[in-house]
């Protein structure tokens, strides 16, 4: 009789432990894989005020230090961001802008791609708290509330299907959707599931703007070209700016 009770208690403790593990897995900022480097070809389509603009090129990210964008359409342009220095080079014009600033965003349009590698989309790091969750078949929906300091921000809802983030809805304080982010064309890169396309819909000046970024020939945590720095010819006009 006593032994049965011990076995029952043991299973109860095991169940409680599993439940606790499950709860902490929801709220903890778990990253599937550590991102060290990323290289890809990119295509960015921006539809704004009924006008479509296309940008094509390749990118090399040595996270978090350096980003090198080599744009080949609609113009030839190299952008290298390294710490506080951003260099914008126009090879056809032999012109280089050196821009110094306290901070440069190194991820630019890569932010949602990188954030998709976090189970919580990186929201815990921004002091968001998990307020609710629902499970529907293979889909997990989690609802996150912003910290009070983020005045007019509302909830953020993450929809994860088979352990892959499929969409993010960002609301304002009046429960209106202000941004919708869709993650598509997941690619299996070793142990990593990485979205090939991210589509973002948001309101700008009252009109809906659509941004679609597609990454091809993706390589993660593989060797990046030896030099991420710009190879500047001698006869180049250099203009320096302080931001």
């Amino acid at each position, binding site marked *: 009789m006593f032994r049965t009770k011990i076995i029952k208690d043991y299973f109860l403790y095991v169940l409680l432990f599993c439940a606790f593990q499950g709860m902490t897995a929801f709220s903890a900022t778990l990253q599937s894989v550590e991102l060290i480097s990323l290289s890809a070809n990119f295509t960015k389509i921006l539809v704004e005020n009924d006008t479509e603009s296309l940008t094509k090129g390749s990118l090399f990210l040595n996270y978090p230090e350096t980003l090198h964008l080599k744009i080949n359409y609609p113009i030839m342009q190299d*952008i290298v961001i390294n710490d506080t220095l951003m260099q914008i080079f126009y090879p056809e014009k032999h012109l280089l802008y050196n821009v110094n600033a306290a901070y440069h965003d190194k991820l630019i349009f890569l932010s949602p791609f990188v954030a998709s590698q976090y189970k919580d989309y990186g929201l815990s790091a921004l002091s968001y708290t998990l307020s609710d969750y629902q499970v529907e078949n293979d889909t997990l929906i989690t609802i996150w509330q912003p910290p009070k300091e983020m005045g007019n921000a509302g909830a953020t809802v993450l929809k994860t299907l088979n352990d892959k983030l499929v969409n993010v809805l960002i609301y304002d304080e009046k429960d209106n959707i202000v941004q919708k982010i869709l993650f598509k064309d997941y690619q299996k890169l070793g142990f990593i599931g990485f979205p090939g396309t991210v589509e973002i819909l948001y309101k700008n*000046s009252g009109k809906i703007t659509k941004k679609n970024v597609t990454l091809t020939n993706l390589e993660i945590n593989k060797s990046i070209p030896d030099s991420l720095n710009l190879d500047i010819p001698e006869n180049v006009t250099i203009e320096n700016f302080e931001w």
Partner: protein
Amino acid sequence: MDFIRNRFIVVNLLMVALMLNLVILPITMDFSFAQDAETENYESICQKAEQDAIEDEDNSASFAFGGFMCGVFGYIFAATSKPEPPVERLVGKDEDYAHAYATCYRQKAKSLRTKAACIGWAVGSTVSMVYFMATAESESN
């Protein structure tokens, strides 16, 4: 009696601060529109940059609060801040666009910040002035 006289000096100083606000505020408001557009293209780039700055600086309440609490220091902080245009908006853009966009964006964003700080400063000064006048009047009675 000296105490009341001191109060009146403080009130006068606050009124001078308020007058300065009334002078500085229109200057900073006009500054954002003072950009002389050399070409139509420059003007349209500038308009886009300014519109983006308005969208991005939507939450400039912190600068207004700084002006309210710290007065002239809040204004100085806003005036010396360095708003930075998002790099993504310069990707795939030619050198003239990048230069014009960055210049107009920074000017507009800074103007919005200083405007918010000025409004905060003016409100703060008015509140303090009303408070001092009310307390001085009640003491003289």
